[in-house]
């Protein structure tokens, strides 16, 4: 009971509300700090000059894109197993942020590719699998959107999310697999070692910044979903009233 009580939208709604400012604040501060380290402290890269600084956006976004999917699938699965409405709503709240992160990773990556590879897009395994991830997020959201009955939408999209989890390891290891197919060298990996500690710290700070941001935004979205779903519940109408 003690834990389960938080699985009630009514209980969680105000809690989420009170948490949002903290995460938002943390996100803001970390972003400022991270960008400062990234753009003023971290030295210019001897190979790439300034272009490499995209890494401070790119890598955090890329990591979050994968991490968020796992979390989303987890909550969706919980919702499917225990029929807890809140966890399904949580999954739905996470999806758009995950898609956004994926998109940012793709976008910044593409921008980065221009100076380093001389082209916006290469059918490198990592790029491709990241693209698949984007498609999965889109599929998840489209399926949820295509079904009118919320309860059915929750369950159906949950099944999809769980099946899609298979793709995450694929993203991570696709590099090796691809190399066994074609010799398209994945820049991401080769560059990783040659990374100055300041870069690394700046990058990690940005990772936490993105993390906080994702949580904050998801919570806000979650509150909207709760209001939308529970709109005839007594407590919601009270909130609306006062």
């Amino acid at each position, binding site marked *: 009971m003690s834990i389960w009580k938080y699985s009630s939208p009514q209980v969680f709604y105000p809690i989420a509300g009170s948490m949002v400012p903290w995460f938002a604040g943390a996100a803001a501060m970390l972003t400022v700090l991270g960008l400062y380290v990234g753009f003023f402290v971290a030295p210019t890269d001897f190979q790439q000059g300034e272009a490499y600084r995209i890494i401070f956006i790119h890598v955090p976004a890329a990591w979050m894109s994968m991490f968020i999917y796992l979390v989303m699938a987890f909550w969706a699965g919980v919702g499917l197993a225990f029929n807890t409405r809140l966890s399904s709503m949580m999954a739905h709240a996470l999806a758009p942020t995950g898609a956004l992160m994926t998109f940012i990773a793709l976008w910044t990556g593409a921008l980065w590719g221009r100076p380093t590879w001389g082209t916006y897009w290469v059918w490198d395994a990592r790029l*491709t699998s990241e693209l698949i991830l984007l498609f999965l997020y889109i599929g998840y959201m489209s399926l949820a959107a295509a079904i009118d009955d919320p309860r059915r939408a929750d369950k159906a999209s949950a099944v999809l999310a769980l099946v899609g989890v298979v793709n995450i390891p694929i993203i991570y290891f696709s590099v090796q697999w691809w190399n066994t197919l074609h010799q398209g060298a994945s820049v991401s990996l080769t560059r990783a070692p040659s990374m100055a500690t300041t870069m690394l710290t700046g990058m990690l700070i940005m990772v936490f910044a993105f993390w906080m941001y994702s949580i904050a935004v998801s919570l806000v979205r979650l509150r909207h979903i709760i209001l939308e779903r529970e709109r005839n519940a007594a407590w919601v109408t009270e909130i609306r009233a006062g």
Partner: protein
Amino acid sequence: MNAGLAQVCGALIARDALIALRRRADVLTTFFFFVIVVSLFPLGVGPEPERLREIAPGVVWVAALLASMLALGRLFAADFADGTLEQMALAPQPLSVLVLTKVAAHWLTTGLPLVVISPVLGLQFGLAGDALLVLVWSLLIGTPVLSLIGSVGAALTLGVRGGGALTALLVLPLYIPGLIFGAGAVGAVQAGLGVAGHLSMLGAILLLALATTPWATAAAVRIALE
């Protein structure tokens, strides 16, 4: 109280647009299907930019072909199953016009989006500026042809289980001229040749399709209803 032809067609478009809106997912999926299919090829064919650039026009066009073919399933099938088509045939307006209207609405929701996104996909395959432009033009003239021809196939296979695949079988061959001239145009500009010839051929095909297919489709619909 009795409405004129224009009004009826207006209502028909409005209705289909509304359904498309309700089923946003629907419209988007044709769109994403197109994107995904195009993206599949580099995976199968391998990432060499040079080779990709060469096959780009063919791939994009074939993908457009398949996407608009998949979308045909939504052109009449549902209306047939739930009896709406029956009511259309009973409407005191020429069926061919009503059919044409439906096809137009269908193109707006399925064909047009493909045209809009095509440049991005072209970029992925490393097409140059002028090639991109021609690609867009060829699709802009070509996709309506696909919808028109497709409508005949869709109507012919009404009430036949597995219609989807059968439609494919019927219409794909008819799509081929469009494919040849469409992809040909892009290929030509890549090879530094003129494209006017190809595009005007496409235009001619479009006019021909506009003039003939509505009647054929209407006839096919009536047959399906007998």
